[in-house]
């Protein structure tokens, strides 16, 4: 028996379209697993299937070894938190948070609601109408409402995507602390690599409905299972071993993926023609043409003036910023 959630060879179909294709995944007690993928990768469909909101065409969803086929959504004890909160617009903040506490004594319920609102940093918001909340507040209420149900598994469907950047980072931290504090196992769907790496114990990368790799963030980053995963994580361009050697990284026995910091400016390196210079906060990003013709970016601390872009830049690969993939050598 496997403790916690076990998804085994799950298939979700919408008519002729296969959204999730034989995915197997586990979430252990206390673990946060991120489902990372571009839009259309099937990550939300998988989450909905786990919640019981979509039927499985094949495969199984199990909890502590028990098959959940036939267990309706409301008996699973898995709470879904949606991208836009989906607060009940006709209920107050307190009534939303207390929705899952129906049937408890009133005093106990009120106390629990107050505790949860404290936990998400909204003390005293109980009597307010949810329509008066900002996007970030609404998501925090949605989080409190989800926690009130004391779920055995939390399913977060892009909980931060509807928020702007500053709020996203702040609420991400709140979410992280809360998940650690409560120890509720969590499946966290996101398309944002930073978000997934920041919050998850393990990251599962989905593409085209297939599960490409599941690993701890650091392992995933250092050893992506293939070019598709590496590319999705932000590696690129991909060089054959000869090219890599010519740029100062000899001895690779596979394709070399260049990470965001994998190419550095070095006067002793290989001179390459500059294609473009773009100002960034605190520096510049220079695009150069590598000897094999591929474009690659180099980060530079120096902010160039508009008319003094250099025509050539000498670069080399930094081994710490590159990965060697086990893919067959074809670029």
């Amino acid at each position, binding site marked *: 028996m496997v403790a916690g959630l076990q998804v085994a060879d799950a298939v979700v179909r919408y008519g002729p379209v296969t959204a999730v294709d034989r995915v197997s995944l586990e979430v252990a007690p206390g673990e946060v697993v991120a489902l990372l993928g571009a839009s259309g990768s099937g990550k939300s469909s998988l989450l909905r299937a786990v*919640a019981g*909101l*979509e039927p499985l065409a094949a495969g199984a969803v199990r909890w502590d070894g028990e098959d959940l*086929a*036939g267990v*309706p*959504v*409301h008996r699973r004890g898995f709470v879904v938190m949606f991208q836009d909160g989906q607060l009940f617009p*006709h209920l107050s903040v307190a009534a939303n948070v207390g*929705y899952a506490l129906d049937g408890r004594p009133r005093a106990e319920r009120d106390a629990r609601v107050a505790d949860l609102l404290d936990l998400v940093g909204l003390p005293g918001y109980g009597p307010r109408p949810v329509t008066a909340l900002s996007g970030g507040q609404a998501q925090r209420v949605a989080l409190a409402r989800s926690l009130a149900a004391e779920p055995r598994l939390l399913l977060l469907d892009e909980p931060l995507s509807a928020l702007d950047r500053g709020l996203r980072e702040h609420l991400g931290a709140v979410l992280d602390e809360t998940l650690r504090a409560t120890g509720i196992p969590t499946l966290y769907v996101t398309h944002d690599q930073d978000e997934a790496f920041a919050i998850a114990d393990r990251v599962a990368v989905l593409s085209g409905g297939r599960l490409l790799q599941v690993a701890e963030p650091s392992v995933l980053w250092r050893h992506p299972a293939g070019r598709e995963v590496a590319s999705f994580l932000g590696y690129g361009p991909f060089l054959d071993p000869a090219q890599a050697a010519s740029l100062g990284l000899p001895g690779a026995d596979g394709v070399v993926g260049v990470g965001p910091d994998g190419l550095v400016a070095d006067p002793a390196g290989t001179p390459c023609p500059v294609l473009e210079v773009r100002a960034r906060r605190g520096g510049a990003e220079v695009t150069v043409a590598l000897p094999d013709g591929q474009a690659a970016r180099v980060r530079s601390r120096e902010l160039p003036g508009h008319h003094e872009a250099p025509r050539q830049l000498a670069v080399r690969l930094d081994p710490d910023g590159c990965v060697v993939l086990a893919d067959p050598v074809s670029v």
Partner: protein
Amino acid sequence: MTAALPVPRVRGPRAAGVGGHPWVWVAAAVLPVVFLAVFFAWPVATLVARGFIVDGRPSLAGVQDVLAAPRTWRIVGQTLGQAVAGSAVSVLLGLPGAYLLYRCRFPGRRALRALVSVPFVLPTVVVGVAFQSLLAPRGLLGFLGLQESFVAIVAALVFFNYSVVVRTVGALWARLDPRAEDAARSLGAGRLRVLATVTLPALAPAIASAAALVFLFCASAFGVVLVLGGSGYGTIETEIWYQTTQLLDLPAAAALSILQLVVVTASLMVAGATRARQERALRLSGNPVDAPLRRGDLPAAAVTAVVVAGLLLLPMGSLAWRSLVTADGIGFAHYVALGGRTGQLTVSAWQALLNSVVTAVAATAIAVVLGLLVSYVLSRRPSSPRGRRFLRGVDAVFMLPLGVSAVTVGFGFLITLNRPPLDLRSSWLLIPVAQAMVALPLVVRTLLPTLRAIDPRLHEAAASLGAAPARIVATIDLPFALRGLGLAVGFAFATSLGEFGATSFLARPDRPTLPVVIFQLIGRPGAENFGMALAASVVLAVLTALAMGLAEWIRPREVNPW
């Protein structure tokens, strides 16, 4: 449907889901379906069958006789002619109104919207009497010589249906993204070209939907034609009534009912198709947009002012004014006379009013309970194509009474519910049931948008928080439905209060409703009788407007049934 409902432990992919087991909503559909079968399908089917039986044997002779009669085709021609004219004029006048009332911002807009929506719910007999008071030789516009004319009937039909166009088109117009028009203008198009090439094409689904609906209402008009048309003009509806009650020729009436069914079904199909298109179009748009009145809005404002003053206010004003004109000058003599049993009336008008209110309350209760159940079922979103097809079918079936004329329903009741197994001839419930049948489509169209507006993920969120299907209905669906309930109750009550088509067949002489009494009064000679009809019409109109005003007042803004 209780929280203790045993969870079906069905193995297999279709077991999970939020809405509970499909049987839950099949169960919710059973009561309305049975009701519709007994009180609509059965009477109408019996009526249709009656057309194919002559002297106790199956025969096409009765139908053939009717189809061969030149009178029939004159009536069909008049029905279609007035319906085409009525819907065309309604659309032409309604478009500027929709623009002004939904796209422009000015003080008093809310009041004007409310005023415009009153005629739609006014009792047909009252509107007939109001136009009669205006166009009769002694009326304000008597010099035009339009009494008992085609123009008079079309004017009254436009009076009714103007608000249908304004509301349907206005609701979409308010949500059209103005940036498409801005883009066209910045590309060098003038205002008229923008209107013709960008705005009107975008509004086309709403315009088509409104036109189809108005056509339907015009083609099944009864009371207003009966009052205004005199002997010269008629519709299939009035002809059915004439053949039944005056000539007692049931096969002919049945054959005409079949003709009416064909006309109505055709226009319902068009209306349904365009409504579906409109719902898709509406989904694409955002929040309502409006701008303060500008100089360029003058033409729309002028047209609307003329329509509101000349077409809507003038007949109502004339009705109210002439109800006060008595032989001895201005006074309330006609109203006082309503208390007596003058002429051949079996009860006083006040007693008839009481009958009307009691009947309408019962009809409203029936229509709203059924309407809630039907709307709940129709608002489900089954994931299987078969389920969706089934729901579309149910949707169409429950819209049928909208057009299958009230006269057909009343006539059908008369010939089916008068003997075992169901003998309701002597039951007072017969009329409320018939009225509820007529009001049901309006109730469903009012409640359904609020229920369909519920994001399905609200259900999913509630289910994942542990709410069983019954609790989801109680805590999510019901509060939403209640927001549309005020308007639904108002529509049902107003429709029942003024219902004349079916009631005219079913009302017993000792228990008439007020519209029936008004019709009896105008059929009698003498200024006194007409004066009383005017007074009674004012009373009925005020009561209807009050009920509707109350409903409008408590309705949420986003509900717009048409």
